[in-house]
């Protein structure tokens, strides 16, 4: 008989629908095929000019209707598209989801082209901001107003899919997608809902976003061969590659899912988080917050420090992250690390920021389901300080019953998820 509660007596939470968009394409299966075959979605930037930029490559999603319409519309379109895919798989009505929505999304700002437009429309006197305000005062701009509100995308998704209650839009920087899943899991465990819609979506790769990360020296400047720039765990890694994408996971209590006859794709068995108080962008040198988050996720899953079969690394390809992440993993798993494969999806899709935790959780579920480990590509020059089996360059078959997926972000954010193929 299937057990519907976990080691702490809480409802087991299943994943019953997955939708994915990355620079590799639209759709769960298309993305999985590309990822499993080690294809890179990183290309030279064409969305805006790259004069004066040190980094001229990215993993942008440039093939959708709203790809050139700004961060809000693109984030929205990707979220809606992946949610539609996931909800269809879950066998649920498209407009009556019946559970809460947790959306991980980038912060919003008025775009430059709109600032220019407003300043030009606001007369000739005063400062640029006074002119923008004058233009706003003269005629309401509901189109620009809704783009400037942080709740807009989630509200539209809530209306579209009939989610319940007040939708939550959240940001834990590069851990946001994992936090959205954690919020959904917790709501189901508390018995507030049978299911939850967890979405990560990020279409915010503007010139200003790129320049901001560039000024913090966070981005790779290996522009010559874009598909080779993201090289987690390599000695010559020099930063992450800015990217866009979205994933939606439909979460449902196992009991409710099976009662409906839904197909269970995997289980989210543990969530762990721990904040870092060391620095705004750097991790504590001893990796203790990341260690704390991994241990919390394993404990929440009832695994203690029993090793998982595979680790979907945060693996950004920045010099610091990969080193710190290895320190954390090798501290938790000690010499058992030798036998745990650890690969980074970001070697192929880049760093999708707010969406990364959700996209990588989705790929983690598919890794277990397909029995196939996606590779870390561009692993030509191993960093001897990070002696891991990173599934170098080519994916391979593997029997994976449990996965740890790590997400770490600016502002001391650390969130880890443990997923399982079957309910334990």
């Amino acid at each position, binding site marked *: 008989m299937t057990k519907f509660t976990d080691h702490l007596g809480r409802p087991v939470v299943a994943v019953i629908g997955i939708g994915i968009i990355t620079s590799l394409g639209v759709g769960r299966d298309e993305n999985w095929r590309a990822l499993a075959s080690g294809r890179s979605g990183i290309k030279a930037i064409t969305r*805006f000019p790259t004069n004066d930029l040190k980094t001229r490559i990215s993993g942008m999603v440039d093939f959708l209707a709203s790809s050139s319409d700004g961060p809000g519309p693109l984030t929205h379109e990707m979220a809606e598209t992946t949610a539609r895919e996931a909800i269809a798989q879950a066998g649920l009505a498209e407009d009556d989801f019946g559970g809460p929505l947790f959306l991980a999304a980038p912060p919003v700002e008025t775009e430059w082209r709109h600032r220019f437009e407003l300043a030009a429309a606001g007369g000739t006197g005063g400062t640029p*901001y006074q002119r923008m305000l004058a233009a706003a005062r003269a005629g309401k701009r509901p189109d620009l107003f809704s783009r400037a509100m*942080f709740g807009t995308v989630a509200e539209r998704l809530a209306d579209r899919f009939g989610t319940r209650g007040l939708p939550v839009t*959240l940001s834990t920087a590069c851990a946001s997608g994992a936090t959205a899943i954690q919020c959904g899991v917790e709501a189901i465990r508390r018995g507030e809902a049978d299911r939850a819609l967890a979405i990560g979506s990020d279409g915010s790769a503007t010139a200003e976003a790129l320049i901001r990360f560039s000024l913090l020296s966070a981005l790779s400047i290996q522009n010559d061969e874009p598909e080779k720039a993201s090289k987690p765990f390599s000695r010559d890694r020099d930063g992450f590659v800015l990217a866009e994408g979205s994933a939606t996971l439909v979460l449902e209590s196992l009991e409710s899912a099976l009662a409906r006859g839904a197909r269970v794709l995997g289980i989210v068995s543990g969530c762990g988080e721990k904040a870092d108080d060391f620095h705004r962008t750097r991790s504590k040198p001893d990796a203790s917050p990341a260690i704390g988050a991994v241990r919390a996720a394993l404990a929440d899953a009832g695994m203690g420090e029993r090793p998982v079969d595979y680790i979907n690394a945060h693996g950004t390809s920045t010099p610091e992250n990969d080193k710190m992440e290895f320190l954390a993993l090798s501290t938790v798993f000690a010499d058992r690390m030798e036998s745990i494969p650890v690969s980074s999806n970001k070697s192929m899709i880049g760093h999708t920021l707010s969406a990364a935790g959700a996209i990588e959780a989705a790929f983690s579920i598919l890794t277990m389901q397909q029995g196939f480990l996606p590779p870390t590509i561009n692993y030509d020059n191993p960093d001897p300080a990070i002696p891991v089996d990173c599934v170098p360059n080519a994916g391979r078959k593997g029997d994976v019953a449990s996965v740890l997926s790590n997400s770490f972000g600016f502002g001391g954010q650390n969130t880890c998820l443990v997923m399982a193929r079957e309910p334990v």
Partner: protein
Amino acid sequence: MSPRDAVITGIGIVSCLGEGVDAHRAALSAGPQAAVLETEAFAPYTVHPLPEIDWSQQIPKRGDQRQMETWQRIGTYAAGLALDDAGMKGDEQLCATMDMIVAAGGGERDEAADSLIIEAAAERNDRDVLLNEKLTTELRPTLFLAQLSNLLAGNISIVHKVTGSSRTFMGEEGSGVSAVDTAVARIRAGQSTHALVGGSYNCEHPDMLLAYELGGYLHHGSWAPVWNRGGTDGGGIIPGSGGAFLVLESREHAEQRGARIYAVLGDVKADRTRRDRDDLASAIAAMARDAAPGARLAISSASGVPDVTAAEASALSGVALRAFSSLTGHFKEAQFPFAIALAALAIEAGIAVLPFSDDEAAVDGPVEEILATAIGFISGEGMVSVRKA
């Protein structure tokens, strides 16, 4: 009464009324008073300015202060006040296990850099090229972090060592409602024992005003109480700079450490009425019946946006309403935590909350229960009953 009741044990609060619990408790029983206003700096808009604050009282390192924009400083400061008030400040063990949910929007942009770019763009047709030229030279590297929504929480972790967990919810008033809702639900379910929840807002920046005014929501005329705005005077909102943080604990956790308990929170009601389709006033009335059927007094986050504010007034016509934004301005994400903070102060002190403006009804003596409301100026509704513990 349950050991897992969510109780309030710490309040950190900042507005034009002053900083800390004493200044705000005094305002609750002061009756209608002249609001503190800044009428010139952003004319034709009026705002409620930040009071004089010695940041070093809660953010001792100058380096930390420099890394933050004002909204982050306000929030980090208010969070420090709340931790102090709860007797948790500097307690490494309690802070390292403390959960945190911050309600935040975005921070302030660099007005000088933006202005320079906009002026230069007026002369150029290749604006995308110009943007790269200017942004790569004019942006301060650290400004990004001073603007980033989740970096208020990040700064609280750094300055106050709150590291149990860190989540940031975004999305106007609703984010504050969800933050409190989630923290309370986690405490009641045993997923958390103690949590820091709140938000802050700095309205004294033209970009912050622009976000409201693109929708025509700012009040243009001279000051009026929130219940009496609109018409030819613009969209109803007079924003304010300030914020509030709450330390929430399970009753059991608070009692074990001998903490002073301000009040206990009931079920948080959080919803989003489809205002284009469904009647807002009916939804508010139903929510209030559900949250606190017996409450005679409400601390209201009413924004001053005429139709939304009128809907709240009519839905809660049997309750004496106290709209704090008449005195403090609108804090966007921080509205709900601020309302709860004021309600908890009144409950704990056992004081009668006098009207904040002449058009609010009197109520006899202190009450045992206050309804805190946050009806979003565009969307999202939340309420909670704040009662004697």
